[in-house]
């Protein structure tokens, strides 16, 4: 100790022994400390990368051009309107250099093609991270002082969703995620407010449980509650992981709480046929009625085949009561006024065939082990408590139970949630995307008492949902309206009068879009009145024939009465008219033969329409567009002419290319088309 003290005091003596020497030493120290800042600057990350970049480009052929583009020093993109100060381009120097296509080392890669110029959007709008930081780690990862790490590339589409509210071609994952949020009813429990003031609406279409005892048995409800996917693999209902007694009590309550549908509806379905009908006839009626356009069935290979508008029917026989099924097939709108199922006008014979066919779609093992004793009042009361606690009424209508408000945490700002407010599981990386995706995959792993049920999403679906949720940021809500791209407002168009009631009854909107409302399975009918001829429409409604033979989803036959057909035809021909042209401006026939011949030449040579369409069934094979053998009896001449000149103007998004056709060519082709009549095809050849 003594020796080290001696050393120190001698050191002091040497440095500060006399005033001049002390002055010199202090000045030196001061100089050194002044040099710290410039030195830090000199040895900073970005200088290192800029030097590396210069070395990289020196040996390249286009070195001079690259050298000219290169700017020394800290670069910055400043966008006051968006609150963006991005210095990323200080190190990422080659982002805009198209010739750096072969460079794969970061930070010198060029940026892949995107629709927005980097100068106008900056980097953090899409990638997140700390734009103002000039140190690699602070810019990219979540270090002590910074909250916002870089968004993993797999979720980058979420950033598009901050401004774009409608689906985009380039963001399939975001589109899917938003669809799933609505389709699986996530937004029934979790409110998601939209910047325009509305809220995201669910499309899960969960059935009302107020009359459920009419439809199914307590045993089925029990089995369904225990594991919905055991009944139907594609079911959107999640698994609540209920204990046996809880499932028993909920099923007891739902049956006890159910009231019959007003009126004697079940016996109206007719009685079961004594002799079992031909099973193949039931299957072919199922096919002819195009049930598979909306309903799926799991085939022997385990694949789900069919549409997803209606519920999967693989084991429907286990679920529904025969008398309910017959009443439903007779008129589904009595049990559920808003159902997407059309009211087929089936005959008694057809109802019997179909109901037996469907009833046979059953799995004898499904309910084999379900044995429930008659419920006690306590069990029913407990069931009611459970139904309230689990928020069943968020999705399902249940008489006597109100739809809960704010049942689950609101997700309007989930994409900007500070990490400090989250509770992570041990072993999880502390970043928001991982937290969200873990919550979706295994909600109960965050605590057994949590109510959120278990969904059976695929890894791709979880990523899509995470992407959609990450798009719900503070910026989504706060962006000035001129900078956002809103979705078209949802249309609640309804047709008026008697025809309107028929259109609702036949659930036309389930497949067709009219005035912005409806499905996309079948053609948009907004301007159908300008498009088709009255007689063809009447015949088609009576007996829909095949316009596009390659399609597996076609218009079913509804067995409409003549008066219903006249009503619908009149309405469509009068109301669904395009303002773009006069329907009657061109005659249905009587075109000069020379013009017809010219049209035929154009059809087969210049425009080669036969690659997609069939006019002569002997020679033409095109299977993409509708068959045109009878187009002269189907479409209006003026519609054809305008369609040929610009198909997308009449039906946005149609795949027939715009040929930029001259008026003369379009008229000649129209003349040729109008000779293709249902009975006059031979006449055209004369």
């Amino acid at each position, binding site marked *: 100790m003594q020796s080290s003290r001696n050393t120190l005091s001698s050191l002091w003596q040497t440095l500060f022994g006399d005033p001049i020497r002390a002055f010199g030493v202090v000045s030196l120290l001061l100089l050194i400390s002044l040099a710290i800042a410039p030195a830090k600057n000199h040895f900073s990350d970005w200088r290192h990368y800029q030097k590396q970049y210069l070395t990289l480009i020196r040996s390249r052929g286009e070195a001079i051009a690259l050298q000219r583009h290169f700017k020394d020093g800290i670069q910055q993109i400043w966008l006051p309107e968006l609150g963006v100060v991005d210095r990323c381009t200080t190190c990422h120097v080659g982002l805009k250099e198209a010739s750096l296509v072969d460079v794969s080392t970061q930070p010198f890669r060029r940026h892949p093609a995107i629709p927005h110029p980097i100068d106008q959007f900056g980097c953090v709008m899409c990638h997140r991270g700390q734009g103002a930081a000039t140190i690699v780690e602070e810019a990219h990862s979540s270090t002590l002082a910074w909250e916002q790490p870089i968004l993993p590339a797999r979720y980058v589409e979420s950033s598009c969703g901050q401004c774009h509210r409608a689906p985009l071609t380039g963001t399939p994952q975001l589109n899917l995620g938003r669809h799933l949020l609505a389709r699986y009813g996530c937004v029934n429990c979790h409110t998601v407010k939209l910047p325009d003031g509305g809220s995201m609406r669910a499309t899960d279409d969960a059935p009302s449980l107020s009359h459920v005892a009419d439809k199914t048995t307590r045993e089925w409800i029990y089995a369904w509650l225990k594991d919905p996917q055991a009944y139907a693999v594609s079911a959107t209902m999640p698994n609540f992981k209920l204990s046996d007694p809880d499932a028993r009590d909920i099923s007891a309550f739902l049956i006890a709480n159910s009231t019959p549908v007003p009126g004697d509806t079940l016996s109206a379905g007719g009685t079961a046929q004594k002799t079992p009908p031909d099973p193949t006839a039931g299957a072919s009626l199922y096919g002819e009625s195009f049930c598979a356009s909306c309903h799926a069935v799991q085939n022997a290979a385990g694949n789900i085949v069919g549409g997803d508008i209606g519920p999967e029917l693989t084991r429907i026989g286990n679920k529904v009561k025969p008398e309910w099924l017959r009443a439903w097939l007779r008129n589904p709108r009595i049990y559920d006024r808003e159902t997407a199922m059309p009211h087929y006008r089936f005959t008694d014979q057809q109802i019997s065939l179909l109901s037996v066919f469907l009833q046979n779609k059953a799995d004898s093992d499904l309910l084999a082990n379900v044995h429930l004793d008659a419920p006690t009042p306590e069990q029913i009361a407990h069931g009611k408590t459970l139904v309230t606690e689990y928020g069943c009424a968020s999705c399902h209508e249940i008489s006597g139970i109100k739809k809960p408000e704010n049942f689950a945490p609101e997700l309007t700002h989930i994409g900007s949630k500070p990490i400090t407010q989250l509770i992570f599981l041990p072993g999880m990386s502390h970043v928001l995307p991982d937290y969200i995706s873990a919550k979706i995959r295994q909600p109960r792993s965050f605590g057994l008492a949590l109510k959120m049920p278990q969904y059976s999403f695929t*890894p791709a679906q979880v990523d899509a949902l995470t992407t959609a949720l990450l798009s719900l940021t503070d910026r989504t809500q706060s962006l000035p309206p001129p900078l956002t791209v809103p979705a078209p407002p949802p249309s609640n168009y309804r047709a008026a009068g008697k025809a309107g009631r028929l259109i609702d009854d036949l659930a036309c909107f389930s497949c067709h879009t009219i005035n912005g409302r409806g499905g996309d399975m079948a053609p948009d009918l907004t301007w159908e009145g300008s498009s088709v001829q009255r007689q063809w429409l009447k015949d088609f409604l009576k007996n829909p024939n095949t316009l596009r033979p390659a399609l597996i989803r076609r218009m079913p036959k509804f067995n409409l009465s003549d008066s219903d057909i006249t009503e619908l035809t009149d309405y469509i021909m009068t109301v669904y008219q395009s303002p773009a042209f006069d329907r009657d401006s061109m005659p249905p026939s009587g075109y000069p033969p020379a013009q017809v011949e010219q049209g035929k030449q154009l059809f087969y040579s210049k425009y080669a329409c036969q690659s997609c369409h069939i006019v002569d069934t002997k020679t033409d094979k*095109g299977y993409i567009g509708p068959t045109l053998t009878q187009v002269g009896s189907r479409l209006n001449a003026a519609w054809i002419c305008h369609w040929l000149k610009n198909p997308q103007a009449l039906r946005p998004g149609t795949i027939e290319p715009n040929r930029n056709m001259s008026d003369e060519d379009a008229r000649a082709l129209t003349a040729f088309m109008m000779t293709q009549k249902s009975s006059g095809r031979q006449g055209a050849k004369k």
Partner: protein
Amino acid sequence: MSRLLLALFAVSVILANAGCARKPAPGTALKATGFGSALVESSGSKQIGATGTVLSQPLVVQVNDDQGNAVTGALVEFSGPASVRFDPSAGLTDSSGQLSTNVTLGSMAGRYRLTASTLTKAQKKIDLKIEEIALGYQQQVGYQLGEKFCARCHNPESTPERVSNFDNLEVKPHPFTEGDTLNKMSDADLTAIISHGGPALNKSALMPPYGYTLSKTEIQALISYIRLVSDPPYQASGTVYAQK
């Protein structure tokens, strides 16, 4: 002074030990119970997915022995460029000799060369090369447009949902994967034939023009997609990401 040094040394030794202790203990890795002599792909290669996303189908490989019988319990390891993730990245084959893994592609568009490997009884390593394709934003747009406007004729494969028109055409279109033909065409040629139809390059009029239907950006996107999926790969197209 020396005590100070001693203390510093002690602290550094403790730190170094702590650093070592955090490393996973060896021996917990999977132990192979079977050994094969061949590694084949069962399904899941040549898939097309968006950058950074999980491929829709898992990658399944199978280990066989000399007689071509499936081997159970063989250790298979997957590897690829650093940005690609496998779940799981290694595992033992099941009773049918197969191992399946979910592949998450890297963040750049391009072709990803992946490797599956297993050891023979003689501890010789067998590799299986697999290729997957990642679409960036531009190729993704091209893919969607291609599916909507082009695939009905250019893709000979039919599904119940989309019946191919390929067989109905007198002059057969080139599938987008047909690199032998398409790689010889320049970007300008492809732009011309898409915009102005077959006759622009003295080819069949059955190929209609899309220049008035698609925008320039959309046609560019379509071409970048075609370039990415062509087989053999298009030379000037994006980087190939492979393990160093």
